[in-house]
């Protein structure tokens, strides 16, 4: 009898402790804007997880765009396209890439890798840049060539002064490149090293050139979710660097930015903005990814706190002086959307409603139920800052049943016609959204 009671009691404990994992995420719209709802952080025995199965696009299937707009595939059969970079002559550079892989630290690392692989995140990257030539601007490329191959997990690119700068995961490489060229034969030269191993948890190195082209800004993600691999390997991580384009000299421009997955300059002001991914396993609505102006010398909280002064108990020892310094970001995008793409509207866009603001590519959540993200949104700006509810632009990457996903948006950019170009790393496609006027 005693033993039976003991066994009943122990199974009750398990049930009670596992019950925490049934927490459902709330309405994402509560977390849009400058004053998002930030719930208390919550620690789970098993964190909420929901990963739709990656299935790819069937012939003729496309994501959905609002009425009056048109979407077409510019290229498919790519190898994990992450970033798109249109040139002034109409050519589009497509960076095909994935992480170099990390060594497991804990038993958990084996499991979480398998879970994320279900959503297509583990597919092999091309480690190359493909050039799509669309000289007549109809969205149907006349040619597709490999511009440069054998890169090392590339992500950010910038063309300045007849030079193509590629931010590999461990270094910026410079290649001589004149727009019009479809192939680069010369080997690149290393401009500077970037923080990479060991671990290299967040491997992407986003990059944008300053308005005068003298500097390159490079986003370097943290080496962990929330410093659980130790603080010593977080040196120079979770930061944005400013690199001198000619000498390669670099300095920290801003810090405490967990994962600055993309950077962009605001047209007109030239100010640096970033989309940043918030931490995981902190609850379905903690904490929001954000879009923010990045202040020079600013500290944005990671790992000690999020959204200003919300302390993360998982970091030990805590640093109240750093928490006090943490800057609140401008605009919440809601939690776990995995904002990876950022492009400012340049005026001549696909629709008048997108005149002033920024497009954000949301790769989609794994650490939240119901799912969040899996779309491209437009964030309107007013007085130079994000303001107002986001407008979904490219949707239905998820299938209707939400159990499978056909593609996942990453990098976004506007081409010379104002059309929106979207990299889709699970559908292995580059999409082009054009306005009614731009169609032929």
């Amino acid at each position: 009898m005693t033993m039976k009671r003991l066994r009943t009691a122990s199974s009750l404990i398990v049930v009670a402790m596992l019950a925490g994992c049934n927490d459902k995420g709330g309405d994402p719209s509560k977390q849009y804007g400058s004053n998002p709802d930030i719930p208390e952080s919550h620690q789970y025995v098993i964190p909420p997880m929901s990963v739709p199965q990656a299935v790819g696009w069937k012939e003729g299937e496309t994501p959905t765009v609002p009425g009056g707009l048109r979407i077409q595939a510019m290229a498919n059969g790519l190898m994990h396209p992450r970033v798109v970079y249109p040139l002034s002559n109409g050519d589009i550079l497509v960076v095909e890439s994935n992480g170099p892989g990390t060594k497991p630290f804990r038993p958990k690392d084996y499991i979480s890798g398998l879970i994320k692989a279900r959503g297509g995140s583990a597919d092999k990257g091309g480690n190359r840049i493909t050039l799509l030539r669309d000289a007549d601007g109809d969205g149907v490329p006349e040619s597709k060539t490999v511009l440069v191959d054998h890169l090392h997990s590339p992500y950010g690119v910038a063309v300045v002064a007849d030079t193509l700068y590629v931010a590999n995961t461990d270094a910026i490489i410079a290649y001589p490149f004149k727009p019009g060229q479809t192939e680069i034969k010369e080997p690149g030269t290393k401009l500077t090293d970037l923080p990479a191993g060991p671990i290299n948890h967040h491997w992407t190195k986003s990059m944008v050139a300053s308005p005068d082209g003298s500097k390159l800004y490079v986003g370097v993600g943290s080496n962990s979710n929330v410093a659980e691999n130790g603080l010593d390997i977080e040196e120079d991580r979770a930061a944005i660097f400013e690199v001198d384009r000619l000498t390669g000299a670099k300095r920290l421009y801003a810090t405490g930015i967990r994962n600055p997955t993309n950077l962009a300059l605001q047209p007109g002001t030239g100010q640096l903005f970033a989309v940043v991914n918030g931490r995981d396993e902190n609850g379905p609505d903690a904490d929001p990814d954000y879009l923010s102006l990045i202040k020079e010398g600013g500290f944005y909280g990671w790992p000690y706190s999020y959204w200003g002064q919300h302390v993360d108990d998982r970091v030990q020892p805590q640093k109240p002086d750093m928490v006090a310094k943490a800057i609140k970001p401008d605009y919440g995008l809601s939690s776990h959307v995995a904002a990876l793409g950022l492009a400012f509207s340049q005026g001549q866009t696909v629709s008048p409603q997108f005149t002033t603001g920024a497009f954000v590519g949301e790769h989609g959540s794994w650490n939240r139920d119901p799912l969040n993200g899996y779309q491209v949104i437009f964030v309107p700006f007013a007085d130079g800052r994000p303001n107002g509810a986001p407008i979904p632009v490219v949707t239905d990457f998820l299938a209707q049943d939400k159990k499978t996903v056909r593609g996942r948006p990453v990098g976004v950019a506007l081409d010379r016609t104002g059309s929106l170009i979207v990299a889709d790393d699970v559908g292995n496609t580059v999409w082009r959204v054009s306005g009614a006027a731009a169609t032929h």
Partner: protein
Amino acid sequence: MAKLVGRHRTPRPLHPLFVGLGGALLMAALFTDSMYFSNALMQWANFSAWLITGGLVLALIGALVLVLDYMLGRAGPISWPDFGLLALAATLSIVNVFIHTRDGWTSVVPSGITVSALVTILLLIAGLRGWCVTGVKAPARGDNA
């Protein structure tokens, strides 16, 4: 033609070896948890996660060998107090291995190290009782006839 069966040939169960090995790993996790509690160096918490995982794998092997002991007729009647102690320790350790998948401080403090301490107490009692879930099989009457 009668075969001589000495009393020292009484078959003994095999499972205590695996139960004891697994128990040692689970108890060691209390040590690594307390090291992490005192110095906050993540590697100690990583050790804990591996020790609890290893302890649970050995517990599973121990359970399979227990079944084998019965099939081979090496085990006597089950001892419910020992079985209960070990079953509870294993159940708590399953919860504990999930607690230890959290990131950073909360993977150990306060719940992880508390569960590790409870498991260690249960296992100390089970260990002092001999890591054995069954009685030793008594030679059946007539075996020596």
